[in-house]
């Protein structure tokens, strides 16, 4: 496996202006030091609660934000192929209302092939539309004539048509009806198949990520706390936050119901958090070292790394 995107020490701070006239500007650390590789052909899931920086990470990878610090290296780019594309959550804002479906799907092709003439585009576009489940007679309609699920199909067609290296999906099913969600997820899984296209799949819904992704990164307050293969994470979550997150997934299984990990934030001074581990104040297995030093990456097994002192010290 070769990596197509390599992220090193990535930080993104947003200024938060104080209400006071000469108030100090504080910083919202949306992304606070992330290392991550995106492999060719993998479906990488990014999960975390809202405000954990998932969407910001996606935008940084797409180049929609400039990083405050750190680097993102893009490799494996060949011409005639688009670097990246994106599918957003809200299918009502993500399509230009004054373009027909044909124009929407045509544009990525034009920018890749560098031509404005529609030579041979028609068949390509028709194929893609059929692939995502739209028909020929819908080709010259406008977005407002479609339902949310259909619009999301159009957005997906636009994202895949120019064969990008990777696609960022930012909560692509969260805005849809549950029945439609399943259709879209199946479509995404089908489209991925065994191709060398990479997915970065951002979601707060662990079930969705489990269904689509081969590898999962768990984010908490601007940091990645654990990365692991899909099955490994569900079988053997190492970081206490991952455990908490997974235990919150509703399962129709009475024996597991009781196992939801209840925890209360232990009264810890928040100041300690700024130096040590971000999860310190809530952590059920914290040690003294967690207060002083931020945890380093610890590879528990091949392809399963966690940022947790307790796990590292236990295994030594």
């Amino acid at each position, binding site marked *: 496996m070769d990596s197509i995107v390599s992220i090193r020490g990535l930080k993104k701070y947003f200024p938060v202006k104080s209400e006071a006239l000469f108030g100090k500007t504080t910083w919202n650390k949306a992304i606070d030091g992330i290392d991550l590789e995106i492999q060719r052909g993998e479906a990488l899931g990014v999960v975390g609660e809202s405000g954990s920086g998932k969407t910001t990470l996606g935008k940084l990878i797409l180049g929609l934000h400039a990083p405050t610090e750190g680097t993102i290296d893009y490799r494996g780019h060949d011409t005639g192929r*688009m670097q990246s594309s994106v599918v*957003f959550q809200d299918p009502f804002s*993500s399509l230009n209302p*004054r373009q027909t479906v044909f124009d929407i799907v045509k544009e990525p092709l034009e*920018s890749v092939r560098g031509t404005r003439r529609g030579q041979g585009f028609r068949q390509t576009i028709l194929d893609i539309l059929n692939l995502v489940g739209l028909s020929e007679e819908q080709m010259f309609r406008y977005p407002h004539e479609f339902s949310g699920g259909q619009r999301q199909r159009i*957005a997906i067609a636009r994202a895949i048509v120019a064969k990008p290296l990777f696609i960022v999906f930012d909560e692509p099913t969260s805005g849809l009806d549950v029945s439609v969600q399943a259709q879209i997820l199946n479509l995404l899984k089908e489209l991925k198949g065994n191709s060398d296209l990479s997915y970065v799949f951002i979601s707060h819904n662990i079930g969705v990520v489990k269904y689509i992704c081969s590898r999962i990164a768990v984010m908490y307050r601007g940091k990645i706390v654990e990365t692991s293969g899909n099955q490994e994470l569900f079988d053997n979550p190492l970081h206490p936050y991952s455990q908490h997150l997974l235990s919150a997934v509703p399962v129709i299984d009475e024996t597991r119901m009781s196992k939801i990990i209840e925890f209360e934030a232990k009264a810890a001074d928040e100041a300690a958090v700024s130096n040590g581990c971000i999860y310190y104040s809530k952590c059920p297995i914290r040690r003294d070292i967690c207060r002083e030093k931020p945890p380093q990456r610890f590879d528990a097994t091949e392809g399963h790394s966690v940022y947790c002192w307790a796990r590292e010290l236990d295994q030594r």
Partner: protein
Amino acid sequence: MAKWLIRRFLLLIFVLWGITTLTFIIIAAVPRNPAIAMAGSQSSPEQIEKFNKRWGLDKPLAVRYYEFYAYLLQGDMGTSIRTERPVALEMRNFFPATFELATVSVVLSFLIGVPLGIVAALKRNKWPDQVTRFVSLIGVSTPNFWFGLIILLVFYYLLGGVGPGRVTSAAYEPTRITGLYLIDSLVTGNWSSFVDCLRHIIMPAFALGFFGIGIVTRMMRSSMIDTLSKDYIKAARARGLSLFRVITNHALRNSLIPVLTVIGVLYGAYLGGVIVIEVVFSWPGLGNFAYNSILKSDHPAIMGVVLVISIIYSLVNLVVDVLYRYLDPRIKF
């Protein structure tokens, strides 16, 4: 679309009927006799009676109201009491000057306001935005007669540029085809005339258009900011489309709709509210004609001016509505 157009035109007739009726009532209600205004306050009762008889002012109001429409349907707008020429002819003489001035002002508002708005939106809260917002605030809040006087003072009196009027002297007047000097001089290839007309129209057009520049800039800025926050813009950027192409292909047309509304209203306001600027700049247009007609209580002329301005205003708004359809396929008639 055709059905919609027919409906709009039928509606237009009702609007025009309403406006002219209102104007007729207002003129009738104003206790001012054109005879006094024209013949002077020293004139004898016989003179006034003769005057009233000559201009049909002795007839009952209902008859005069009926006659106005009866003649209008035959294309006769009556005869101006002040100039003693047919009102229709006066309209043909004066309207092109106003139309030209208002059009140049609207074009200026659009050509300056839209790019300024785009720049301000792209550089939001940075210095280009602050400067632009300040300028547009001045544009919106400056009364245009005052601004016109300042322009005249600086560029004509102090700097010795071109003076008021449409042309420097009659020698520069182009051969009359449409009455729009800029077009007439271009068509006849009369370059010296074209340059002279252009130099003359810049000052009043800018004085008139400054308000529009301010408003268009503001509308464009806020509309553009709104559009740029949409996901299809981000998606286009994420695909690697350049900022320029994102703006020309996606953002511009979608943010032009509110601007277009403003432009339509502005155009109408310029055509109607051009009076002050035309008087300040001695511009021989409809505004000047209306001003003099009102001073002399020239009833047929006032009716004519109101009618023509109403027609133009309605037509401009009709065109704007048609353009909406082009800009936004969601809008259906």
